[in-house]
């Protein structure tokens, strides 16, 4: 079945099983590998993308459910790796192994678009679905505050 996905402003017509998780359509069919597989059951947040402004877990979203919607992945956050969230992540050395960070960044971008100056509680709530086994949470928390600051200037 042919499905059209709008990813980072570009339409991709793909011929896949409509039940296939959006994650695998993005990674294997479209070829954008910045979005990661971690658990397959929407528990770790590695696969987070932004669909119509909301952070969603692409590993258990059927590709058909994303058709006609606006999908943003890590590749679409900025042209030059300089979105305020990316700048803050770099400045505070947030990533370690880095594998979960695409998902962390997408959750943070979605949070800041809704709540430009979030409290620690709001951050905890918005980021609770993103696991990092390197334990970079303290730096991510600080980086979200820093990104909020950078966005104001």
């Amino acid at each position: 079945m042919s499905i059209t996905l709008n990813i980072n402003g570009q339409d991709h017509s793909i011929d896949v099983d409509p039940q296939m998780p959006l994650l695998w359509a993005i990674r294997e069919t479209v070829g954008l590998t910045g979005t990661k597989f971690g658990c397959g059951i929407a528990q770790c947040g590695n696969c987070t993308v932004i669909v119509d402004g909301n952070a969603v877990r692409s590993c258990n979203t059927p590709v058909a459910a994303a058709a006609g919607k606006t999908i943003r992945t890590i590749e679409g956050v900025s042209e030059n790796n300089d979105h305020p969230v990316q700048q803050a992540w770099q400045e505070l050395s947030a990533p370690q192994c880095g594998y979960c960070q695409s998902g962390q960044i997408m959750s943070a971008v979605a949070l800041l678009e809704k709540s430009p100056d979030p409290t620690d509680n709001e951050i905890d709530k918005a980021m609770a679905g993103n696991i990092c086994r390197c334990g970079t949470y303290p730096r991510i928390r600080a980086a979200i505050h820093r990104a909020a600051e950078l966005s104001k200037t």
Partner: protein
Amino acid sequence: MKHMNLTRRRFMKITTSAAGGLMVGIHFPSIARASGEGAAAEINAWLTIDPDNIVSIVTPQTEMGQGAFTAVPMMVAEELDIPWENVRHVYASANRHVNNDNLYTTTSTGGSTTVSRRHPYMMQAGASARERLRVAAANRWQVPVDKVTAKQGWLTTEHAEQGTIQGTYGEFAAEAAAVTLDEEPTIKAYGDWWLLGRDIPRLDVPLKTNGTATYPIDVVVPGMVHAAAMACPVPEGRLVSYDFDAVKDMPGVIAAVELEQVKEVPAFTDLRSGVAIVADSWYQAQNALAVMPIVWDYGRGASISTESQMAEAMQLISQPGALVLNEDGNVGRRLDRGVNHDAAHGIIEASANQVIGEVYYRPFETHATMMPPCAVADVKDDRVDVWTFTQDIARSLNEVADQLGRDTENVFLNQTYLGGGFGGGYNMDVHRQAAAISAAVGLPVKVIRSREEDVAQDSQRPPVWGTYKAALGEDGLPEALVTHFVGDEKFPAFSQRGVANMPYLVPSRRHEYSAVQNHIPIGYHRAPGANSTGFIVEQMVDELAQAGGWDPLDWRIKMTEGNEPWQRVLLAMKEKSGWTTDLGRGEGMGIGVVESHGTVAGCVATVAISRRGQIFIDKLDFYLNSGYVINPLGAREQAESSAIWELSHAMFGGLVIRDGRIVNTNFDSYQVMKMPDTPPEIEVHMEMSEDQWWGGLGEPTGPPTPPAVANAIYYATGKRIRSTPLAKAEL
């Protein structure tokens, strides 16, 4: 205090090589890139300089977030004396290493050793290159070599007639590559550093904020197919049969491949008995595998469970165990320091002041690296390429060659970033799976483990049980102490490290050991031994201190008298942490101190317990003595990271085994720490014994953290929690 981490043999090898012999990779014949105008010149196996003075530094270790790809170039650049912005990092070739007598000595990445043990090689490589550049310049300028300086990428001399002459390293690289030194230079000592010791941001960070860092799961080879594999859900069990006909018409399905186990009981890195489905996409392969009927012979493990191991351990721990001595391997360097193994039991039995401990317990824990194990293999007649989850590229290359019966010269193990490692990249067979499947179907293949398969097949950190009994003297300090720990049969050292060689000096001291039956594979797990034993020892210490009427911190200070690295940490804790055992009802401070990986790590935890018994960790305060620190920023990152790693297991973890198989195989049932659970405040204090030794920093803050938290809970509530997960304790 002897804290040299080079073994005597290694040290000899380095010093003797200084007399013009071969120092790893330094005089290795350069690959013929040194010739020709505008070409980059390889000065030695560790570094290449291009005409624009850009230096590419080779890192033989893997980068899994711990900072090897920054630390290794820093150590080379320190000696080479090149501006940091001119430095690029590149992966080592595993093929070149393996086929040239282990050119870089080792590519293993674990035990917090990349800086602590590897620095002499890397610094020597930089120093040697710098000296050869000086010789090259001296030859061209016709001046004595001692008149040429090498600094910040420039070679300079004051010529009698021509005045100051300068050239970049890049201009002399090709000539330097051909120079043989009469004598190898000595590497710099602490105090002479210009780059080491500064906060240097990791070079891999920008790639990890825009999705461009490549992990094995991202590798795409033209014509590649995808595979999902399954080994027996009860480890050590075997495949009996499978019904491919039932799934062969499912969308995208190409083939089933049986994975053959050669040995009766496989080594941790051997291919395990199982079956794989190959399909056009991983989603299709996984769907077919999930519904394909498979018959297994579960083997002996089917009768082992969490309960059966617990019952066996409790039985064993009530009887005497086997004495653990210094010479029994990786344990006990302090056990033979004037202690009396044989007398300990008798002294305790005769004592009027006995302390009899209860049993402590840590369950199995898994790695659950964020990237589930994955490998890509492209097996051709004349060449094999593999990208895989590994913490030792050479070892994995050798294993692939072994799997396929190929000559290592034709096997290429290509490095990528790792999506976490934590020791999980050692005892792994996913590269063998990929190689076997690619060979069977004649196509490049990518194998991805589902999270469930990852946890089911992972080499886990084993359970540990521990108890003790002691006799206290008139001063309230122990005069005799017997510890008895029960571990698993596959890796006894994990229930001995950190306890057999604990630093507290008791006049009569004995450590005993027993093992439960275990079929679950075991592996390294970011301080697996020290994490389990630290939880027990550092609570035992608080119990002993309390029984003897001592403040727990003063007890530790007293019991490590003369041990400078420990004293430095303990006294700093006393001075700076605001230490008290009396914060008032519902709040508590606790301490834990554990030496591991050459570093003494102290933790002061402050907790608050809600009326409903929920634990809030308000603050973790660390005091670390690792000797030197080459990159304080990286050190702090690792201190935070390894503390949260182990706190995650202690608060929420614990694998459950039923009928021989692991029950909680995904993040819905195996809980890990998340952002809301993370302590709001983590402070790291570097209490360095400078000019003394090199300790590792990738792991040591893990072990003291859970006992510090458990001790804090005790002072807050009066309840001692002797097993994990702590979050499940009744408070």
